[in-house]
């Protein structure tokens, strides 16, 4: 369980996140949604300690995040960030094995058990055939899947993902999110696509200017009356075969 209480972050004088509280509960997938610049990524970075709020606290399973040693924090929180790994010359297998680092002692090298975990995680994201390739030579979508495999290899009790469906084709968008759901760990996902959020998140937090506009179960937050003023787009909500779908249309068109 991750609990953030009263956290704040400002770039310059403008507070992006202002006195926000969030709870990510065990075994559930929490989605962070909101328009561009609403602070989704900033909030996520506060949750895994890349940013330290001057106010409030973040606790992971009851321990304050700032009090945890970096390696201990990495055993509890696995994160998929939007950093693409740049010019690294590591192979895919080496990249995934980096996820085992937090579990290894300083003088310990990776063993057969670690290799097996890494191979299994690559398999789960449909990338086992990429193991020997250079990470830098992969396509955007393949990279993203490898980074998710690395986060899985970390075997942390919490999984945080910043736009994990970026660069992925439609099939892998669903496969990755279904995989995250199937893990049964506490997951926090920043998502752009509201229909993906509808299908794969248990709870949602909708961020608007400076703070939380709505928070609650997915069905409650994905209410056109709540979403329309925040996103500035017309929305129709459909229930098809028990699943929730959103259709979008520009607001001006409707007026005209």
């Amino acid at each position: 369980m991750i609990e953030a209480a009263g956290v704040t972050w400002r770039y310059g004088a403008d507070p992006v996140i202002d006195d926000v509280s969030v709870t990510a509960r065990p075994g559930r997938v929490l989605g962070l949604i909101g328009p561009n610049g609403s602070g989704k990524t900033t909030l996520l970075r506060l949750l895994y300690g890349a940013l330290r709020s001057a106010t409030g606290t973040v606790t992971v399973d009851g321990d304050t995040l700032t009090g945890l040693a970096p390696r201990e924090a990495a055993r509890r929180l696995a994160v998929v960030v939007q950093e693409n790994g740049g010019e690294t010359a590591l192979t895919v297998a080496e990249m995934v094995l980096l996820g085992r680092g937090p579990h290894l002692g300083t003088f310990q090298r990776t063993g057969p058990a670690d290799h097996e975990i890494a191979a299994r995680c690559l398999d789960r994201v449909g990338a086992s055939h990429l193991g020997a390739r250079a990470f830098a030579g992969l396509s955007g979508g393949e990279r993203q899947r490898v980074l998710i495999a690395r986060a899985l290899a970390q075997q942390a009790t919490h999984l945080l993902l910043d736009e994990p469906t970026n660069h992925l084709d439609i099939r892998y968008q669903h496969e990755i999110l279904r995989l995250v759901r199937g893990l049964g760990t506490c997951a926090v996902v920043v998502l752009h696509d509201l229909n993906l959020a509808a299908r794969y998140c248990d709870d949602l937090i909708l961020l608007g200017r400076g703070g939380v506009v709505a928070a609650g179960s997915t069905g409650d937050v994905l209410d056109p009356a709540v979403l329309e003023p925040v996103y500035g787009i017309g929305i129709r909500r459909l229930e098809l075969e028990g699943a929730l779908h959103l259709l979008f249309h520009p607001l001006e068109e409707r007026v005209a």
Partner: protein
Amino acid sequence: MSTDTLGVRARRRSTVLWTTGLSAGLIVTGLIAVGTGAIAIDPATVARIVIHQLTGLDTGDWTPPQEAIVWQVRLPRVLLGMTVGAGLAICGVALQAMVRNVLADPYLLGINSGASSGAAAAILFGAGAGFGQYALSTSAFLGALGASLLVFLIARSGGRMTSIRLLLAGVAVGYALYATTSFLIFASGSAEGARSVMFWLLGSLGLARWDPLMAVTATVVAGATLYLTVVGRRLDVLAVGDETAHTLGVSPDRFRLRLLVVVSLAVGVLVSASGSIGFVGLVVPHLARRIVGAAHVRVVPVSALLGAILLVWADVIARVLLAPQEIPIGIITSLLGAPFLLILIRRLHA
């Protein structure tokens, strides 16, 4: 789980082979290099003299001048070459990971410019005269220390020590101290002094002898190599990115600071012992990565071996090419290194 689907075991096997092969190559290089010079001595005799000196065993006959040449003159020089080559190579590896730029080299942080200013002050104005025969090295080391401190303070001044801030601080300090050295040369008005400073700036192993300086240099390089190998996995993570490092349990700012201390110390000692020898720290890490891949646990030791071998051969060329005159070794490494780097760059984009 007997199949090696990730290729980890194959990599490890090939690394062991390369390390063994390069170690053997280093010994052979040493024997040939010690034997080469105005008076040629065959490698077998060199080996017998060295073994006798180390163990006291009776290993056959040779002439006293041969023993003096091997043990007093050439061996210290070759060992210093190995130490400096290994040291520059591993510092290059560390810096390329720290600033996440494959064009980084040990002199990027302006540390050598600081050492040069110190050396110029010693040669031209007798700074550090109180240290007797170590005046030059001590003065150079103090200059290097001053430069690193300056880089460190500037890089930290804005809060976090990011890679870009470290890079810019290094370049700025480097230019300022380079200007200082030029000014010292200009102000002294001594043509002879200017020549000595120039010679020192281009690098030389001519100061090598069995003395505490050699022991300090060797210890620092050995320690740094060991440290960088042990933290290899953390270097991998840092080289990918700060955010990634953080999420994998490595505090990027704290780790970069520790690396800066290790590298500054090592480069300061190396420059004090041998002047500025370019390109080794830039090219060798690339070579090592081509051979054993990018994981630092393998890149660091292999770079150390490669750097040691290459610098000793560069020194052999420097001694032999225009014998009896000696060419500054920095000229040789740059002449060899530049085209080499161009080839690597061509391959990089192929």
